[in-house]
């Protein structure tokens, strides 16, 4: 039981971190909390399902294409809705909150109420520690999650685009003075945030099939992880995801499975009381 909770906690933790990464990025750079994050996740899940199952595409190509389409969709949303709200973080929160409800109901209309699941990449289960069987798809998703996280890390630290993003997230005015086109950058980084949600969506939807209203739970967990880790902090996101994953699974295994999600919230509130800016946050709030 202990080992199962540990394994599941780590795997789910990585997955949480991945889902939260997009939120964290957008908060860090634009100071916008995207309430509709989960809906972008769901959209990518539906896309990859329909590309792979309805159109018969290769699952990898379906995933890539879905992420790309959500990236573009995210940029369109930025232009239409988010651009007007810069500087007023609550305004963007309210707008994206309404957007999330609109998207949920659009999905219900377009994709129908049934859960949709893209094909598994791998089959079967692996016997872990000789103790229990663990789904291969979950292990694969965990691996894919790690790969995406590593790519994001390298992109932030090593590329020209990443430097520009970090410069902007530290001091927007200075970045502007140094010739960074922040309008274009905002559009790109919002799109990127959505694309990360999409990446989480295509990786996870074979395990947890997508439903029109499924995005809210994803977004909630992502918010908890981001606030816990500290808004805009890369490592905060990863560590926060792991903490929440482990706490929830150990809580569910040894205390009460019904209160699984409450354990995460309680940890969050304790951390906020001690460190109002989260574990890795240093921004003045």
């Amino acid at each position: 039981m202990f080992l199962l909770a540990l394994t599941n906690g780590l795997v789910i933790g990585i997955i949480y971190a991945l889902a939260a990464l997009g939120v964290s990025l957008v908060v860090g750079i634009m100071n916008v909390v995207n309430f509709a994050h989960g809906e972008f996740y769901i959209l990518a899940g539906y896309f990859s399902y329909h590309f792979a199952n309805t159109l018969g595409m290769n699952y990898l190509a379906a995933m890539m294409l879905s992420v790309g389409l959500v990236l573009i969709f995210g940029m369109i949303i930025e232009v239409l809705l988010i651009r007007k709200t810069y500087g007023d973080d609550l305004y963007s929160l309210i707008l994206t909150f309404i957007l999330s409800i609109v998207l949920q109901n659009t999905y219900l209309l377009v994709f129908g109420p049934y859960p949709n699941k893209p094909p598994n990449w791998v089959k079967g289960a692996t016997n872990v520690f000789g103790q229990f069987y663990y789904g291969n798809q979950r292990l694969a998703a965990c691996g894919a999650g790690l790969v995406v996280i590593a790519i994001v890390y390298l992109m932030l630290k090593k590329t020209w685009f990443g430097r520009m993003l970090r410069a902007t997230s530290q001091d927007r005015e200075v970045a502007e003075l140094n010739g960074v086109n922040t309008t274009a950058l905002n559009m790109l980084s919002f799109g990127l945030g959505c694309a990360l949600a999409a990446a989480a969506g295509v990786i996870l939807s074979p395990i947890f099939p997508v439903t029109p209203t499924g995005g809210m739970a994803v977004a909630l967990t992502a918010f908890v992880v981001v606030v816990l880790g500290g808004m805009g902090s890369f490592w905060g996101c990863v560590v926060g995801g792991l903490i929440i994953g482990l706490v929830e699974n150990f809580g569910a295994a040894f205390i009460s499975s019904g209160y699984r999600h409450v354990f995460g919230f309680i940890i969050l509130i304790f951390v906020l009381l001690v460190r109002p800016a989260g574990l890795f946050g240093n921004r003045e709030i």
Partner: protein
Amino acid sequence: MKNTKVILACIIVGLFGILPLGLNVYQQHVMIVCLFYVMMSASWNLLAGYTGQVSFAHAAFAGIGAYTSGILAVKAGLSPWLGIPLGVLFAAVIGFGVGLLCLKMGGIYLSLTTLGVSEIFHIIINNEYEITRGTMGLQVPGLLVEYSKTGYFYIMLVTAIVSLLVIYWMIHSNIGLNFRAVQNDEKAAASLGVDVIRIRVLAFTVSSALAGLAGGVYGHYLLLITPEIPSLDQQFLVLSMTIIGGMGSFIGPIIGAFTLEILSEYIRGYGEYHVLVFGLIALSMARFAPNGVVGLVQAGWAKRSTS
């Protein structure tokens, strides 16, 4: 000037007083629901529109009011007439606590924390189904011995008027001035002697208590208290109504609540589409007219007076 306002208010209240005579049962029901949303939006507006604390736990506080009174009625046989005040008190106490918890947080941190609080509350209701009956809903006794729509209409009307009077008094007193100062610039307000902590916690407590009141009366009107009352969907409605009406103005949420509730009754005929239509209206209002109907009217007025 002040007199015209008072007279106008009296006329409207009077009109409402005789309204049930001209309405059928269904229309009376719609009016009662409208009044519930008036209370919810106006009290959320007190917190979000006047102190800038965009809480996502407002519906949860309505739930606290409703469940406290409902559980007391079902488990202890307490009359709702006593249960509702206790629910209000309990909501106020929890609101005070959440206000304290969120003190050091601003803006989105506060919003996300209240979201968490609301979620915890939701999970507790779902898990303690032996007490709350979970998603199944708690069937509670009514406020009236003999069920009567007209009776409930008047109860709701009186409660709404009392709530609105409390809110009106607050925003036009020194407290309201401090609320707005805190919302505009917390640091500047503190430097000018505004006790920011007291003001923020006060706003949370009062607003939560009013939500608890609205939830309690509503629950005992529906005779059924479910996790829908403290749900995020409900929060969405309250937020949309306030924004569409006009956040930060006294009359805005009242207009928003009536407009959207009546509108949603009309578009309900479209089945699955109604929430979508509702959301699209809210979205375009929030995007293109962030000050709501009141803002539009004011802008129109300003235009006319300058031209």
